[in-house]
């Protein structure tokens, strides 16, 4: 604890509701903010906790009826901190034992609370560093705890072992945060990323709210990232060098993919059923064949024999029509995108799939689901094979999806591959990074399986509830979450962090920030020297 910033003393409390800290008369309530870390010096151990509530209290309630005159600074000075005082609610999260064994073990989750009258002070930078670790080859600096200089570092190999989520209202900085996290994964986690980039902002460049262009992954790490695009024309117009133009053949679409599009294409249940029947009847080319069925006696008989009702068939045909009108859809494709994605991923190259002008959710769901299903099954096979043969499993894969509530809402979560990945997690070395602005729309079963959640400001009660579901001290964190600034502040909690922490993400977008992200490059002079040596 930093002696200069002593706040007060523990006066009451419980493990479930947090401890009450009475502020010293010298400390002002106006200087303490929710979300800040405090250190409590117990008798034999130190506790680390977060301020979750601030309150004004008076020993005699008559004071609230007859307060001293506003001009009476003398009485005000005497009363503040004595009869009228500030109370903090601090939720303890970690305990650091006093003996040598505890020092080796590091901070542990709390199972008790500090004793009466333990002094409480703002946590020093070294306390925070002890908990979150220093920046090293595994830990990545994502930002700074609120009002602190210390670097908040995440253990990325640990993070990618589970599926994770980034949430926040529109315009709160989700995209910037995701970009930072993706860069971190790229550098430190030994995993490969597949990003379904709906608005084309992770691959080449994005823009800030002020309209300034910011570099994205490919510009910072040209050798480690490839950009796939669904929309060649759009990519050309934006002068983005793409590595592969994705085309999808009708024959790559399975009835399961259609089931997922039921809502967006407005298909009836029977129409979805019909897909399975038609697939069975026509085989791989079922879409093409279905579209070729015209009105006529022959067709009627065919439908009859397949027990497909005319209206269901029309509904399905309309839906298929919408899909096939997407210009990246072609009857047959020689170079299957999924094979290329897999090839790149296996080489350790990260893939960003840009959707260009196809920001329509139908295209996004269709392509993301289609590719992920194949990739996941390949990964499963490879992992199982590696297990059986005792060889090295494939590198962990992190799939980033936006608008996640469309894939993971309670109605479709059980059907989509994303639901399966979120639930089965890391068994097959494949996890999700879910980005969404309406977490309440995501199936609660999936939400509960997300390892680490990073959330920017949310103000809808339902969304807050769903993000914080199942976490201890939920009510206290709710206050912290609701009070985050509308920009560039976030709360992270879950598997990868020992305790929840409110932080402001590190800067992204300036020239200096890029330098920090990219590993130090060799200077031109050094390059010349190296070349000289080579020729010698």
């Amino acid at each position, binding site marked *: 604890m930093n002696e200069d910033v002593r706040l007060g003393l523990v006066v009451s409390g419980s493990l479930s509701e947090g401890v009450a800290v009475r502020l010293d*008369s010298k400390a002002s309530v106006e200087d303490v903010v929710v979300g800040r870390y405090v250190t409590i010096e117990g008798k034999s151990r130190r506790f680390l906790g977060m301020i979750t509530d601030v309150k004004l209290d008076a*020993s*005699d309630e*008559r*004071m609230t009826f*007859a307060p*001293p005159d506003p001009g*009476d600074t*003398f*009485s005000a*000075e*005497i*009363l503040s*901190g*004595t*009869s009228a005082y500030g109370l903090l609610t601090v939720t303890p999260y970690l305990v650091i034992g006093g003996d040598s064994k505890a020092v080796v073990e590091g901070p542990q989750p709390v199972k008790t609370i500090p004793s009466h009258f333990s002094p409480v002070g703002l946590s020093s930078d070294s306390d925070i560093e002890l908990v979150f670790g220093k920046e090293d080859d595994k830990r990545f600096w994502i930002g700074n705890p609120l009002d602190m200089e210390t670097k908040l570092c995440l253990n990325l190999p640990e993070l990618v072992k589970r599926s994770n989520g980034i949430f926040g209202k529109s315009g709160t900085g989700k995209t910037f945060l995701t970009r930072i996290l993706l860069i971190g994964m790229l550098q430190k986690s030994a995993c490969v990323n597949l990003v379904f980039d709906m608005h084309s902002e992770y691959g080449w460049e994005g823009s800030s709210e002020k309209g300034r262009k910011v570099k994205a992954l490919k510009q910072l790490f040209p050798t480690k990232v490839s950009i796939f695009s669904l929309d060649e024309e759009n990519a050309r117009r934006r002068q983005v060098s793409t590595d592969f133009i994705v085309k999808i053949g009708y024959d790559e679409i399975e009835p399961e993919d259609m089931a997922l599009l039921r809502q967006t294409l407005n298909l009836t249940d029977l129409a979805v059923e019909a897909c399975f029947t038609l697939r069975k009847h026509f085989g791989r080319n079922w879409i093409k064949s279905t579209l070729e069925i015209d009105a006529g006696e022959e067709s009627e008989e065919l439908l009859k024999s397949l027990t497909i009702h005319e209206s269901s068939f029309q509904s399905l045909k309309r839906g298929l029509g919408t899909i096939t009108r997407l210009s990246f859809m072609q009857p047959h494709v020689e170079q299957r995108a999924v094979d290329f994605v897999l090839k790149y991923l296996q080489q350790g190259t990260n893939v960003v799939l840009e959707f260009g002008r196809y920001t329509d959710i139908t295209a996004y769901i269709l392509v993301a689901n289609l590719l992920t299903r194949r990739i996941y099954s390949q990964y499963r096979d490879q992992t199982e094979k590696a297990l059986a043969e005792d060889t090295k499993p494939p590198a962990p894969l992190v799939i980033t999806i936006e608008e996640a509530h469309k894939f993971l809402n309670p109605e479709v979560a059980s059907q989509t591959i994303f639901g399966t990945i979120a639930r089965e997690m890391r068994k097959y070395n494949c996890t999700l990074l879910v980005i969404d602005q309406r977490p309440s729309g995501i199936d609660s079963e999936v939400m509960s399986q997300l390892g680490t959640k990073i959330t920017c400001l949310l103000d809808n009660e339902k969304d807050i509830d769903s993000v914080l579901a199942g976490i201890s001290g939920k009510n206290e964190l709710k206050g912290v979450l609701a009070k985050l600034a509308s920009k560039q502040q976030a709360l992270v909690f879950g598997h990868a962090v020992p305790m929840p922490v409110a932080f402001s993400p590190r800067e992204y977008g300036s020239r200096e920030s890029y330098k920090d992200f990219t590993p130090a490059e060799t200077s031109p002079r050094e390059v010349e020297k190296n070349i000289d040596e080579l020729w010698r």
Partner: protein
Amino acid sequence: MNETSQRLGEVIEASTTGFTAQCYELYDLPPLGSLVRTGDSTNGLFAVVCHAVTEGLEPGRKPIARGKDEPDEESIFQSNPQLSKLLRSEFSTLVVGHRKGGRILQYLPPQPARIHSFVHACTAEESKDFGRTFGFLNILLNAKIETPADELIAATLRIMGASYADPRPFLIGAGKELASLLGEDYGKLKAILERIKP
């Protein structure tokens, strides 16, 4: 001690919690709430003047009005020089601490004052020494005396404060101590603060 402390009178009645002293001169009473002491700089008692009385020497005999034909009050005493010997001024005090081997202790002494001990007014220096801690406030607050406790405390603090060039820090410190003692009784606290405001 640079200043010499003024001798006020002698103890004529003593108990554990306080003593009564008679002044050498009629009406030569210390102000209400002033800090007095017995003993010397190593051992002795500290007390706060809480009550004072001037009356005739003989309990049963009341003074009578004598000034009918006199032009002013002063003349009564000039015409009746015996009066200043027949009347006496006494003050009662509350013991608020004692000095043992030079150390000031703000709780009741093991023994009461001795009869005929000399009573001195405390100098500014002694008053400052004594006012370094505020344990005496609790004794004053809980005393069972005629004078209202808030009046007495306010008077004591005003007088003690006067020994500082800037009394505000001292008064704020004392006020905070009172605030913690009177946490449940805001009315009384407010009354005292109103009276000691610099």
